[in-house]
Structure formats: C-alpha cells, structure tokens
C-alpha cells in the first residue's frame, strides 16, 4: 500500500516533508467530486442575468413585460425593484489598510459600492441589469433575451493613458476624476544626474488578463426554514457571507456559505460578486432553491480581471554596475470597481523594491477607474508587473554597460551579508518589511545551473535557419501570508471513533489543503494520516476565516491547525488523566501511555474511554484556534528560460524552463512542485498569449476562448525545479507561501530571452503579451 499508512509504533516518521498521496485526488480524477453545478436539486429554479450590452449609458427603461409571461418564467427582477430591498454591495471590512501603511504611503483610496443590479446607469459591458428566474436555464435565457433595455449611451473611459486627463469622462460621478487609488513609496534620496551614471528610462505595458479558471463561478442558494445555505464556487466563503449579510441585512447566524469542490480560483474567486447576493435573495423570496452557473461568455466579461498597467520607469546604475536608484510611476486600470482597491496597486509598489541592494527608490502608483470589467487580484497580484518592469530595466542596463544580464544581477543581488534585509518601509499589514531570507545570490546561481550555458549553446547550434535562440532570467520576491489583521481559524475535534476531524475557513480551489492540513494534524497528534479528515469551506464549522489568497493558506490556516491540534492533545491528556485518576499519562506515538506495563491507549481507545466515561458524546474533544502571523514571510526565486523565436513569424517557443527558489521547508514537496509548475504555465500564458481586449467603446473583444488564448500542454515545456529551504521564524511550522512563485517572473524571464534571441534586430520587449504580431513589428523595425 501507499507509504502513508500508519507507521508501526517505534518507527514514527513525520508526514510533513514527505510527498504523501493527496487524500482528495481520487474524487477529482474519477469525476465523483462535486462542483456547484453537480449539486443542482432536481426541482430547483434557474437564474439568467440580463447584462448590459454597452459600456457606459443611462438606463432610460427596462421593460420586462414580454419576458414575465414567457414559458417557465417564475420571476423577473429589475434593479429598481431590488434596490428597495437590498443595499449595494460594499467593500469588505478587511480591505481597509493599516494606519502605518496609510500614512507612510500617503494613501488615497476611493472605494465604491456596487449596485446589485444596475438602477439608473450601466458602467461596463456585462453589468447585470435584471434577472430572470425560470424552471430551466434555457427558458430563463429565452426570457432574458426578451427583456428590452433602453440605453442612452455615453462616452466610455477605455484608454488608461487618457483616463486621468481633464477631457476624460468620469466613471463615478461623485468623484472629481477617475483616480481610484494613489500611493507613494519613497526610500533614500534620488541622486543628481552625473556623466558617470547609466540611466535607463522606459515605458512598459502589461496587458489586462483574466484569471481563467476551468470552472466558472456558480451559486446555488437553498432556503431551509429560517436559515439558508449558499453554495458558491468561491475562494472566500466568509467574505461572501459578510457582504451578503451587509447588503440584505440578514443575520449571519441564519446564513451558511459552503464551497463544494472549486475548479480553479486564481484570485478572481477571492472577489465577491453581486450574483452571490441576488441569487440567495431570490431563493428566500421564492422559497425555493435557485441556481446560477456562470457560462464562459459571462466568465470572460464579468468575472474580475487584472494587470492592465502602464509604467514609466527610470533605473540609474553606476559605471561599476551598482544600482543607484529606481523610480516607477505607474497606472493600473482597475475597471469599474475593485473590492480590494489598494491590493494590487500596493503589492506592485512593495514588490518593486526587488531582491537587490537599491538604496534609493521612488514609486508612485495610481489605480484608475474605467468602463471595463471590474478587477481584483489575479495570481501574482502586482508582483509579476513589478518583476517585469524592474527585470526588464536591468536587462537594458546590462546591455548599456556591455555585461551579461545575469552578471549585473549578481553584482546587486542580496547575499548572506545583506540578509535578513530590512527595507525601512512598511508592508500593507503595517509591519516594516524584513526579507527573512538567507542568500539570494545562491538562488540566482542555482537557477542559472538549471538551464546551463552549454545547453543553450547547443540549442543555438541546432536552431532552424529562420529561428534564433535566446536565454533570459527573471528574479522575483513574493511576500506571503499577511499578518496580524487577517487571521484564520481551525477547529479540530477528536471523534468518538478516534479520528480527528479538522475544519478550516480556507479551502482549496484545486490545491491540496486537505492533504497538507492532514499531514500537519497527523504529526502534531502523532496519529496516522488516514485518520485525519479535513473539511473546508463551511462557515458553520469554524468561527472565523477569510479564505485562500495571497499565498496564505498553508502558513495561516496550517499554523492554526497545528495549534488547535496541540490543544486537542492537551485537552485529551487532561481528560484521560482525570478519567484514569492518574497524572502519569503521556502523549506517545499513536496515542497515550497509561499506567501498567506497556499499556498504550490508541487514539481510538482513548476516545472510546472518554466517551463512555460520560465526559462528552461526539466529538469527544472540540478545540478551536485562531491564528494570525505577525507579518509576511518572504519567498524569493529566479526563473531561467531558453526560447526560440521564429524571425519570419514572430512566434516564440519556450524550450527550457527552470525555477529555483528560496522558501520554507515543504509540507509536501509534490504539492509545492505542482504549485510552481501550474504557475509557470499561467506565466507563459501571460507572457505570450493572454490579453483581454476592449475596443474604444468598451466592447469586449476577447469574450470566448477562441479569442482569449491560454497555453495548452504543448506550449509548456518540462519545468526544472530547485528548492532551497530557509525556515521562517514567523510561524510555528517554519514555512513560507509558494502559491504565486511560478507565475511572477515568467514575463520578465521570457522577455529577456526574446531580447537575447533577437539581439541582431535590436529588439527590446516593453510589453506583454509578446504576441507574434508584436514581435514581427519589432523585427521589421530592426530590419529597417
């Protein structure tokens, strides 16, 4: 059998650190795992939304009379009617930034509420205007098409470079302009220009992306007497409950939010959506289960999007190759709203500090409202953007200095003498940034070894006549698991059958929470991995939680599991000592020692003893621990990549890909590898293919998967990995997050490789994605 079966007593081996088999993978692979759409009750009702077909307009009228009498239609609800019962959706409580952060960064933020259904105006294509409930989805869509909306179209804000000009229309009429967020980060003094300095000034663009999950969003609301259960494909069940109750005025005690299996999240599902309010409201109103399953068109037009930046940067380097100063003034198109406002804009600023000695830094970040789809974080959330512009600037500086890009990085990267490294700048959680790493130079060296020069030389020699091979590196920082205001709870119960039931507020959207939490609990309790049963995504089971985002699940909820399990051990010991009238009971491998020769009470025997002793029924012991780390812990890494570029078509093939990173010890190395490989695949997508586009009127041009292109297996090479462990002192497990490591430096590394490949054409990539059309233009310019 698999190696994770109970170790015989005396040969106890920890589960943490081993690549044990995932305990939830069977149902995901054999199709028995249930997603929201698999839960539909036979007799339930289906909702279809009427969505805006224009990006900016006054609503002159919404005529539902024809739709209301169509076959199967149970209810048609307009924004005007809903607004009499339900408040607009407001940003969540934890989106507020800490005081120290606000002050230091001179933060300006204008969070907006969102009407659950549009009332008098629409502000992006896809905005929900009305909803039809019918006996099936086909009939609901037929009726939705029969709703007549009378628009008075207005000029839309769609060009980020012009959105802050005086001539631009304003998306939110109560604001003076389209500024959503502004923040500044200053460190050191900017030097006077001198002739002995190399100055690299550039403008970079990062395309808008969708955080495309295989399963779209979906909500199933089931009324049950006074209570209601809301199933949602979300990363943040607790925040869904919070915003649903805030909008409806419902008592949170009457609302249970649950997540079934979630088929990918990546950040967009860490937003809350008006559908998660409208559908439960309809279910209570109608007294019947109501379902809405997002289709792909809705997914690509209304699920939150991300990136979409313009950066103006200036990197100053002295003649010896030492970084002198680094400036970035950037704009982030936040679309019509963003529940987290500061999130991505702030992450970009903080990660622009980089993995290097840069004494002087000036950053201004501005989030801008537009008439595009709302935004949120998408895997990386500001970090890929920061890595792209800093690493690109370093490549350009290396070219000016006439040295290898990797060499210039070596000269400036933080080494053992620099680390831990205090930046003198607070993180978003209000605590001053200290990189808790060991030696980033070693990571760079390791990454270079993953795709060695001789191998790249061989690829160059083998290339076809029209192909050129290039090599690039990208360095990244990844702050993981924000502290102290963002806790997670874990509840650990000893069941009467001697098994541990673990529940957490954060759960998987494909990741292996249930496996790694079971590993942690099994080690802490010194019991078999198979005897730990983990449940996630149920607001009834734990008192407090936020969700899975920002590479926090393992660190924050994992630590809570550790502490809650320790409490279970302690409580069980206490109870056993009491029950047996003996203080000599000890916690040992597999259970507890008891007086008498060689007597070991297994967990099952202990549970049975306590249960029959009348101390408790089932569970026998029930403990909760709520944990928050003191602040972020930092993962750092380097991507090294070799590409081939077809000089006649501008098409890029990724030939070799390596990721070396310095992070905490792995709970489960196979899970960590999977996280990074998946991230790299998405990183390749962002670098080469993915691009959400709107025309100047705000019409989406990438609303199907024939237009929004994501990488396929044949576009992703084998990915070579190297893990360098440096335990964190900030949590009891010594771990660091890795959820975003794979995606952050992909665009930077691939751009470097493309520049290298096309050096003879003088190509300098300054934007993502590096499409065939874009590179063909650069090659043609180079030929002229």
């Amino acid at each position: 059998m698999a190696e994770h079966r109970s170790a015989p007593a005396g040969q106890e081996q920890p589960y943490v650190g081993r690549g044990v088999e995932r305990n939830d993978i069977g149902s995901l692979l054999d199709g028995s795992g249930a997603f929201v759409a698999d839960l539909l009750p036979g007799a339930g009702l289906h909702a279809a939304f009427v969505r805006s077909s224009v990006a900016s307009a006054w609503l002159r009228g919404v005529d539902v009379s024809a739709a209301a009498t169509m076959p199967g239609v149970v209810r048609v609800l307009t924004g005007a009617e809903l607004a009499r019962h339900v408040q607009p959706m407001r940003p969540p409580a934890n989106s507020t930034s800490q005081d120290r952060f606000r002050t230091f960064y001179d933060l300006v933020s204008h969070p907006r509420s969102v009407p659950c259904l549009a009332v008098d105006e629409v502000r992006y294509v896809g905005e929900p205007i009305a909803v039809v409930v019918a006996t099936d989805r086909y009939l609901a869509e037929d009726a939705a098409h029969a709703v007549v909306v009378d628009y008075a179209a207005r000029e839309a804000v769609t060009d980020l470079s012009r959105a802050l000009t005086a001539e631009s229309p304003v998306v939110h009429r109560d604001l003076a302009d389209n500024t959503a967020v502004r923040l500044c980060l200053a460190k050191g003094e900017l030097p006077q220009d001198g002739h002995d300095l190399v100055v690299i000034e550039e403008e970079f663009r990062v395309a808008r992306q969708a955080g495309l999950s295989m399963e779209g969003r979906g909500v199933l609301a089931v009324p049950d007497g006074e209570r209601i259960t809301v199933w949602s494909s979300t990363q943040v069940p607790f925040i869904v409950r919070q915003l649903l109750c805030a909008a409806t005025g419902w008592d949170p005690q009457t609302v249970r939010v649950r997540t079934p299996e979630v088929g990918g999240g990546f950040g967009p599902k860490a937003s809350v959506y008006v559908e998660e309010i409208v559908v439960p409201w309809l279910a209570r109103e109608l007294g019947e289960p109501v379902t809405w399953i997002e289709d792909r068109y809705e997914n690509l037009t209304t699920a939150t999007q991300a990136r979409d930046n313009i950066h103006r940067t200036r990197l100053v380097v002295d003649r010896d190759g030492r970084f002198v100063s680094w400036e970035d003034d950037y704009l982030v198109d936040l679309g019509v709203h963003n529940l987290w406002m500061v999130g991505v804009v702030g992450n970009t600023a903080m990660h622009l500090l980089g993995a290097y000695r840069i004494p002087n830094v000036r950053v201004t970040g501005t989030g801008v409202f537009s008439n595009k789809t709302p935004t949120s974080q998408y895997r990386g959330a500001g970090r890929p953007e920061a890595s792209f512009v800093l690493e690109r600037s370093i490549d350009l500086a290396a070219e000016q200095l006439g040295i290898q890009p990797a060499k210039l990085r070596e000269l400036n990267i933080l080494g053992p003498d620099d680390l831990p490294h205090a930046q003198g700048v607070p993180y978003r959680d209000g605590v001053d940034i200290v990189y808790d790493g060991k030696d980033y130079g070693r990571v760079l060296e390791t990454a270079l070894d993953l795709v060695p020069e001789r191998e790249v030389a061989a690829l160059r020699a083998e290339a076809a006549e029209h192909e050129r091979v290039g090599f690039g590196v990208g360095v990244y920082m990844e702050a993981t698991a924000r502290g102290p205001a963002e806790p997670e709870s874990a509840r650990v119960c000893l069941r009467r059958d001697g098994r541990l039931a673990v529940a957490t507020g954060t759960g998987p959207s494909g990741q292996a929470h249930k496996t790694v939490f079971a590993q942690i609990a099994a080690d802490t309790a010194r019991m078999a991995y198979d005897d730990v049963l983990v449940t996630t995504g149920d607001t009834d089971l734990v008192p407090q939680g936020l969700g899975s985002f920002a590479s926090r699940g393992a660190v924050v909820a994992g630590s809570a599991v550790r502490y809650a399990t320790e409490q279970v051990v302690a409580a069980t010991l206490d109870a056993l000592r009491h029950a047996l009238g003996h203080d000599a009971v000890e916690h040992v491998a597999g259970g507890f020692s008891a007086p008498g020769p060689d007597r070991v009470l297994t967990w099952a025997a202990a549970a049975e003893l306590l249960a029959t002793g009348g101390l408790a029924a089932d569970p026998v012991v029930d403990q909760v621990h709520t944990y928050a780390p003191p602040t972020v812990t930092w993962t750092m890494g380097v991507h090294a990549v070799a590409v081939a570029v077809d000089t006649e078509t501008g098409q890029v093939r990724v030939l070799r890909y390596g990721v070396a990173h310095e992070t905490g010890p792995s709970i489960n190395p196979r899970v960590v590898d999977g996280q990074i490989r998946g991230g790299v695949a998405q990183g390749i997508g962002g670098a080469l293919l993915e691009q959400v586009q709107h025309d100047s009127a705000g019409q989406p041009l990438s609303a199907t998967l024939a237009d929004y292109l994501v990488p396929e297996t044949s576009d992703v090479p084998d990915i070579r990995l190297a893990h360098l462990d440096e335990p964190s002192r900030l949590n009891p497990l010594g771990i660091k997050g890795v959820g975003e490591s794979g995606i952050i430096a992909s665009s930077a590394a691939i751009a470097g490789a493309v520049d290298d490949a096309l050096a003879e054409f003088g190509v300098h990539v300054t934007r993502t994605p590096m499409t065939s059309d874009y590179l063909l233009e650069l090659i043609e310019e180079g030929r002229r």
Partner: protein
Amino acid sequence: MKPGPVTLRRPASVEECLDVLRSEREAVVKVISGGQSLMPLLALRMANPDVLVDIGRLDELIHLEVGPEAVTIGARVRHHQLTEEPLRSLLPVLAEAAGHIGHTAIRNRGTIGGSLAHADPAAELPAVMVLLGAEIECRSASAGTRLVPAAEFFTGPYLTTLADDELLTAVHVRRPGSGTGHGFVEFSPRHGDYARAGALATLSPGPGSRIAAARLVLFAVANRPVDVSEHVEVAVGARPEECDWASIAQAAVASLPAPIDTDRANRYRLALAAARRALRHAADRFAATRGHHGQ
C-alpha cells in the same frame, strides 16, 4: 450561452433529409453534422435557425471509395479519419491539414462535409479542396445531384453555392500523380487554433525529374481560399532545386489585394513565410519521392 428555441428534425435517410430541406424552404434551416463550429454559434445565439436538421443518422454519408483515378469521401467522414490510413497515403496533404484542425476530441466529432459547408476562411479543409481541384457533391430533391468545383463552391466568408434545399453529400478528389510532393504550413497562436495564415503546395513530377504541375493555395488571408498557382507556373519544366521559392512566394503574396488593416498586413507576412516553407517542403518531398533527381 444556451441555444434559443429551435425545431429539431432528425431524418433517417438522405432521401428523407432532402424532403425535409425542401419542405422547410421557407424557414431558416441549418444542417448540423459534427457540430464543432455550429454548436458554439447556436449557444452564443449568433446563429438562430428556425429548424435544425441533424444528419447524425445518415450513415450512408459515412463512406470512402478509392478508385484508380479518384477518391470519394462521404460528407460525414470525421476529420480524425482523414488523418488515418488509407487516406493518409492516398491524400497526404489532406491528412496533414486535417491534423491541424482543433484537437483530438474535435477531430473525433467534426466532419469533412460540415467543415466545407461552414466555409470558414481560416479553415484548413476548404483550402485543401481548392488545392486538389476537388468536386463537391450537392444533392437536392428538386435538382438532383450536381458536382461543383471547389474553386467555385466557396464564394465568401461562410458562404458557398450550396442552395437552401441542398445537402453536401460527398467530395470527389482526384488522386495526385505518383511522386507528387506536398507542403502544408499554417501559423496559428497555438496548435489547433484557426490559422492566422496558411499555405498549401503540390509539385508533380514529369519526365527528367522536372516539375510538370505546380499548385499553391493560400488561406486565412482573404474571405475564402485563394488559388495563386499561376505564380508557381514559372517552376514548371524546372527541377525543384533550381527554383527560387522565395521569389515565387513573394510574387504570390504580392498578388493579393492590398492589406486593409494591420491585421491583414501581418497575415500577409505570415502567408509569405508559409508559402515559402510550403513550397520548400513540397520540393523536398518531390525530390525524396523520386530519389534520383539530377539524372
């Protein structure tokens, strides 16, 4: 993304199907075969027919006849089958092109007749039919059977000469002469996507390892496949290794109407590379097949 209301007809024979098409002449009718292009259009409600005629029961359209001169392929033969023997050996350019259609799951459903009747200008199979000078067999209850040369069948984007009551029932493809070399090159963002530009070429041998016939077709650069073979005629009578394929490709692409936008201009650049490579592949295979060129 659910199709709107539609009347579904499922005839059991070609004859019944033709009757259905005749009787529904006043309605907006779409014939559905593998559904790989039509289903998304129905789901997006971009196509809203009154009547959908499902030919999934017409097994008589799943046939393959190999004659000494020509091959007849029934309309319901799946793309997957085009990539396999015996067609792989008989019509290698068809097999290679069909391998670029979508992915396995799509090729297992999509049919040759469906693809040709759909007439997407970026699709592979219409271009192959033009290249091979195929004849498209169309049948109707009113006019019987007619054969339309592929070059005349495709009239514009998603437009063909198929009449409202006609069913595309088969294609007749002349077998290429022994020793014919072919080239197929398409550029798309990912494997299986519709082409941004593509080219197909055949070079047929005559006496003395000289080119007796040369054909070149471009696709995804105009509203239908473009036969630019006249620009390859300069190669006829020459040995492949004597030909300046780059100049021939240049002349062929230069003959297209001036690009209307940057998208089209980029497609032309890709078409140039595709044409050059397709001709070179054809030349390489031509030589390889003869095995004694230069004698």
